[in-house]
């Protein structure tokens, strides 16, 4: 332990009588033991990373908004959240389009999905003029299905934040043509 070895009292021959020096060494081992015990305890008991939060605004259900016109399928990227973290998407094609079957593709979360969103938003924003508020024409419709998890939804909302897609909608019911299109992929 951090003992300070006292080497006092070695003066010799000066003839003076000195009081015997007391040993000032204190055994610190128990204190240090306790200190480390407490460190261990506090390290295990604390939650270090404080959780963050993302704000979610959902449209008012009671408020009737008559002025919205149906979205044009050519400006929309529809993401279906399936099971096992799969994402199916329709890029600029409506689900009742005859081409829908062949244009339904599958992707995974992470950079794959991100590049899909970027690609689609760049294409759509380039082809269409900005709206009166200065946002691009690109709209992303997110459709979590019954087999998807909460994590999937948060991940997609996070992608929206990362790709800075300002216009997105969280829609929780599938239309009949979408149900037909996805078929067994969204069966529990």
């Amino acid at each position, binding site marked *: 332990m951090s003992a300070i070895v006292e080497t006092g009292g070695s003066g010799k021959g000066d003839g003076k009588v000195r009081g015997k020096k007391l040993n000032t060494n204190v055994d610190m081992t128990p204190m240090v033991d306790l200190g480390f015990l*407490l*460190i261990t305890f506090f390290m295990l*008991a*604390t939650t270090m990373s404080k959780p*963050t939060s993302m704000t979610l605004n959902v449209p008012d259900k009671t408020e009737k908004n008559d002025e919205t016109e149906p979205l044009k399928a050519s400006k929309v990227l529809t993401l279906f959240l399936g099971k096992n973290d799969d994402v199916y998407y329709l890029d600029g094609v409506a689900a009742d389009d005859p081409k829908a079957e062949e244009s339904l593709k599958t992707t995974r979360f992470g950079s794959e999905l991100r590049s899909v969103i970027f690609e689609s938003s760049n294409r759509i924003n380039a082809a269409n003029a900005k709206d009166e508020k200065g946002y691009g024409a690109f709209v992303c419709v997110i459709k979590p299905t019954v087999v998807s998890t909460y994590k*999937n939804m948060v991940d997609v909302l996070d992608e929206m934040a990362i790709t800075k897609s300002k216009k997105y909608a969280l829609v929780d019911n599938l239309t009949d043509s979408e149900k037909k299109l996805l078929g067994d992929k969204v069966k529990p």
Partner: protein
Amino acid sequence: MAIVKPKKHPPHMDMTPMVDLAFLLLTFFIMTATFKTNDAEVTTPSSVSTIKVPDDKIMIISIDKTGKVFFGVDAQPTRISMLDNIAQSKGISFTDLEKKKFSLQSSFGFPLNQLKAYLNTPDGEMAQIKQPGIPVDSTGTSELADWVYAARKADPGLRIALKGDNLAKFPVFKDVLGNLQSQNINRFNLITGSEAAPAGFKMD
């Protein structure tokens, strides 16, 4: 021949710096400690969001991985007046002891008709009881909605946070959402862990 032997010393190391550091760390951990609570075990997904969850004036609706829903309010006085509110509207009465015990629960997941029995179990056994979760259905008028209403009546300034488990199924979240929307709550926080944003990303 005289061999010069080095004088043997017992190995001696100065541990003062180590001890100093140890106590510095100890102080740090004591100061920053916010203790884990015995809430429902929820592993939240992560997001790049940098907004911190507020510490006070908050109600947290948790969804665990099996889809059970838990509810909790942060301040103890609010918990009591929330219980009073719900007791009044449902025609139940709670004793002072039950209220006291209720105010100590940081979150709970019991249907209203089982809550009284739970509050009357001895302290030691409370932690072992499996909580069935608060009933939530898609009608938007289930017990969770009643609790949220009671809590907002107790403290109108409460913020609403949702904390879902990674594995919770989406329909449960949809039902919870329905319960909130039926009361015209359209803005809330999703509690997530933090993760690093991809390279080149700037929050605006």
